[in-house]
């Protein structure tokens, strides 16, 4: 087995994973996930629980401590087989509140407190760092075994170098697929599928090695049983306390580990998948541990005494001369390590960016919420956080020297994340849990864990002075890290578990009982605990004095232009309004906040909206008022409210229609006088000049000049009448369309050339994205070009910027093409936006228009005839129009 071959196959495997993730992302983008969101993939992705610690470490654990390794799988088994109701509640809350991470869940539950988010983030990062280091170490160890087995000089090997390469590679993969976009629900289909593939690889690898050991080396099940009975392993000292404690610990960890929370709650597509996972995931765990004991026993038997039991999975096939099998085992271990690191770093990066980096950034630059493109900032923060997490893991690996046994580090990490359990379970089942309680509990747990478990793990004299171990901190004997309050009977692990959990719960309960929660906290508490009973409580926002346009601008910076516009449009039409700007009602603000929190976390979203709207104005009195009403009145008023909302919507629509009608009628009067004026001016000059001509006796050149004036005026008249006729034909739908295949790019080219005639003295910068325009449409090219010409000419006429710019953006989605024309001028005032498409409408400054105000009305009619639409796009920093046209125009006549 050549070392180079190993590296090569490793690289090929990574390329394969890239391809899988890439392919799935592509399908997800087209909305065709199909079986990729099945319960099977969900269950396999849960196997992220089995890291390199399981793959390599379990055998070592079994060789050292007998069956104790099983406790690590019994905990999750018990949680999954029976406590789906707990998991389902988590998943439902995660969905309803757009939870992005476990830190977000806790911060959101306790009044969107960012301080709590920071505490949870710190716990998670501290606990996960050694765990990530462990994964790097396992890969390095595995490489080392192959290198030492290979012939001399076939592979130059420096562990530190390998660790660096692995860390950098993982960072690249994670950044590439974990931060592609800022999804509203933080889902990463590509990564989930890649992880499901890795889950299969590691299971197959372990089963293959196990089968080889049982049937290939030992010679059958009976033999193996005999060997187990005979093995040294039998000196297995089990303590009931430790056994039970470890089962509890692993049960807590499977809920609280950031990566488990990520795949279980955040990436969940369908609550129903949990039912399948309730037995399939334990089955997977059982299959993973089926051959652990035989491998450990045979390994101890066959391999030299000094061999590292953590690496038996690799060394056993190698020692027996099965290079191919060893290679498979290596890939299995590689899969376990990489999948864990990828998901863990995504989960941690989400927490770090949402709870630490973005709030800091907003604090340092107040007003940035509305000023910069936050999406890029958030994504960049995530990328930096991923790199930082991996760098921390690598640093820990370097500092610790990668010596400690795998199992010890894993358990310490488990105990660290388990500190979140009381706040989480308390938060979703007990409405009385308060922010102060949660904070006290978490801090106490963190402190006890650090003092009794994490810091001592570096060894006496490293993080804690050796005297502290023997005499206790400050010389107080009851503060010894392994015997708090004189409890010496327990082993260090059980001791740390016992005291950290007891003190954590105590602080949490006492803190909650003695403090009074704030209004937002109580609302969130009710919403979380009663998540299955639908929406509760009053709205969180009072009707704000905020311009919807400012909200739109902010939302665009976070959600992206398309998503934000769609969201606002939907909200506006639900209120019975046209266009993109809904009223900032409390319900709308709530919806917007919840949507934004999917991208940047609840605390940040809340802070950003309050920046614009002002403080959330719900008070304790509001809550009391609601609480005192009886359920019947509530139900009755809910019905009334629904009807009232309906009435308000209708009234709103009517009022809007009425306003429009009044204005149109005014415009019409104005237009009639305008049109008579427009008709009379040329008429007057035609009459006057023709009278002069009739009298005769004029010089030749004067006759020619007068003739030309008459001709020009007649032409102007004709054009006016043509426009009017055109409009009436379009309105009656009696227009003849010549439908054919045409290139969008050519149409825009043509329109730009034609529009140059309008105010030719102005130098316009045109910004286009040519590749996106390479679309062929089945439509009436001339008519569509006419619309483009009109919009471009309008921009040329009215754009008042010193350096005028026109941006043309083309997008294609769901069988429709949108073309946006956006200039950098002052834009159109809000009260005029509703009117510009009406016939005869003109903005106040009529002189500048020079037309009869029919252009946009004609455009609208043309687009209706072409099965599309043209609309004003607010909030783009200038006047902006969006033309929407179907890819294929279905003609009715044909």
């Amino acid at each position, binding site marked *: 087995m050549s070392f180079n071959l190993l590296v090569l196959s490793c690289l090929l495997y990574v390329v394969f994973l890239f391809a899988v993730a890439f392919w799935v992302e592509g399908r997800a983008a087209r909305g065709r996930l199909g079986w990729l969101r099945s319960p099977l993939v969900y269950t396999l992705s849960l196997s992220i629980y089995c890291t390199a610690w399981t793959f390599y470490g379990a055998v070592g654990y079994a060789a050292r401590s007998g069956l104790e390794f099983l406790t690590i799988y019994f905990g999750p*088994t018990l*949680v999954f087989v*029976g406590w789906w109701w707990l998991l389902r509640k988590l998943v439902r809350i995660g969905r309803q509140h757009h939870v992005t991470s476990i830190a977000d869940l806790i911060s959101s539950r306790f009044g969107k407190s960012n301080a709590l988010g920071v505490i949870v983030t710190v716990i998670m990062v501290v606990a996960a760092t050694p765990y990530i280091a462990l994964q790097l170490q396992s890969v390095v160890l595995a490489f080392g075994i192959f290198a030492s087995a290979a012939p001399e000089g076939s592979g130059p090997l420096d562990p530190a170098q390998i660790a660096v390469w692995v860390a950098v590679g993982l960072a690249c993969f994670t950044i590439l697929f974990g931060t592609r976009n800022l999804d509203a629900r933080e889902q990463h289909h590509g990564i989930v599928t890649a992880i499901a593939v890795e889950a299969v690889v590691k299971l197959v690898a372990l089963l293959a090695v196990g089968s080889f050991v049982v049937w290939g080396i030992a010679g059958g099940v009976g033999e193996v049983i005999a060997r187990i*009975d005979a093995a040294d392993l039998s000196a297995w*000292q089990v303590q009931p306390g430790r056994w039970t404690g470890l089962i509890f610990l692993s049960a807590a960890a499977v809920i609280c580990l950031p990566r488990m929370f990520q795949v279980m709650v955040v990436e969940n597509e369908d609550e129903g998948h949990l039912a399948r996972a309730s037995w399939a995931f*334990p089955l997977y765990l059982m299959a993973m541990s089926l051959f652990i004991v035989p491998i450990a026993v045979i390994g101890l038997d066959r391999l030299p005494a000094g061999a590292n039991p953590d690496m038996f999975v690799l060394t056993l096939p190698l020692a027996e001369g099965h290079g191919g099998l060893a290679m498979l085992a290596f890939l299995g271990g590689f899969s376990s390590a990489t999948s864990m690191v990828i998901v863990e770093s995504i989960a941690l990066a989400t927490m770090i960016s949402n709870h630490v980096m973005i709030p800091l950034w907003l604090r340092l630059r107040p007003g940035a919420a509305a000023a910069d493109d936050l999406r890029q900032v958030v994504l960049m923060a995530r990328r930096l956080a991923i790199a930082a997490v991996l760098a921390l893991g690598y640093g820990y690996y370097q500092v610790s020297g990668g010596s400690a046994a795998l199992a010890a580090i894993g358990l310490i990490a488990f105990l660290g994340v388990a500190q979140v359990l009381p706040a989480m379970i308390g938060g979703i089942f007990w409405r009385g849990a308060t922010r102060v309680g949660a904070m006290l509990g978490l801090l106490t747990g963190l402190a006890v864990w650090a003092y009794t478990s994490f810091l001592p793990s570096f060894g006496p004299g490293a993080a804690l002075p050796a005297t502290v171990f023997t005499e206790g901190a400050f010389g107080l004997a009851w503060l010894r890290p392994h015997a708090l309050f004189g409890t010496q009977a327990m082993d260090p692990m059980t001791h740390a578990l016992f005291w950290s959990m007891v003190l954590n719960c105590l602080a949490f309960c006492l803190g909650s009982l003695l403090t009074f929660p704030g209004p937002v906290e109580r609302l969130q508490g*009710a919403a979380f605990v009663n998540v299955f*009973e639908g929406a509760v409580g009053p709205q969180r926002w009072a009707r704000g004095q905020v311009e919807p346009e400012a909200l739109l601008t902010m939302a665009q910076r976070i959600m992206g232009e398309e998503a934000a516009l769609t969201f606002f449009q939907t909200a506006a039409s639900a209120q019975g309004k046209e266009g993109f700007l809904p009223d900032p009602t409390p319900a709308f603000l709530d919806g917007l906040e919840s949507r934004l929190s999917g991208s940047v976390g609840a605390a940040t979203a809340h802070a950003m909206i309050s920046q614009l709207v002002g403080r959330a104005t719900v008070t304790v009195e509001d809550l009391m008022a609601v609480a005192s009403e009886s359920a019947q009145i509530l139900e009755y008023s809910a019905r009334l409210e629904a009807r009232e909302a309906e009435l308000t919507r209708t009234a709103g629509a009517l009022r809007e229609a009425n306003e429009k009608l009044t204005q149109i009628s005014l415009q019409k009067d104005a237009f009639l006088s305008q049109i008579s004026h427009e008709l009379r001016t040329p008429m007057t000059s035609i009459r006057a000049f023709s009278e002069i001509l009739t009298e005769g006796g004029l010089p030749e050149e004067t006759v020619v000049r007068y003739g030309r004036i008459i001709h020009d005026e007649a032409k102007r008249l004709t054009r006016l009448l043509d426009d009017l006729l055109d409009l009436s034909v379009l309105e009656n739908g009696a227009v003849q369309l010549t439908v054919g295949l045409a290139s969008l790019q050519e149409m825009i080219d043509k329109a730009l050339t034609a529009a140059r005639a309008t105010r030719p003295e102005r130098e316009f910068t045109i910004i286009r994205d040519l590749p996106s325009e390479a679309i062929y449409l089945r439509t009436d090219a001339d008519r569509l070009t006419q619309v483009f010409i009109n919009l471009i000419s309008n921009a040329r006429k009215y754009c008042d910027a010193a350096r005028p710019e026109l941006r043309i953006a083309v997008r294609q989605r769901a069988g429709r093409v949108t073309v946006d024309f956006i200039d950098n001028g002052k834009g159109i005032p809000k009260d005029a936006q509703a009117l510009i498409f009406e016939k005869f409408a003109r903005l106040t400054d009529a002189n500048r228009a020079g037309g009869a105000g029919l252009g946009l009305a004609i455009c609208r009619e043309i687009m209706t005839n072409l099965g599309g639409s043209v609309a004003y796009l607010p909030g783009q920093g200038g006047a902006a129009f969006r033309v929407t046209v179907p890819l294929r125009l279905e003609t009715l006549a044909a």
Partner: protein
Amino acid sequence: MRGPKRPLFLARAPYRRRRLRDAARLLPVLGLLLLILPLLWAPEAQMTLTANDVIYFFSVWLFLILLAAAFAPGLRGGEGRDEDED
């Protein structure tokens, strides 16, 4: 704030479904009992690892998985009204 009143007594089918859920909820308790039981078989000092222990634990494990698989279809149905508490 409770929603509309729920019926006090249920028809046979929903009744069975709820008891099935109760059974599923009790499963971890049964499992924990079975997994701790072997520790009580012998005094602490004489605890040794035999193949029988391994077989016992894996049998319990398989038993729990099979029970969970039997309950799983019942967990999916009836989403909605009769949600959390019995």
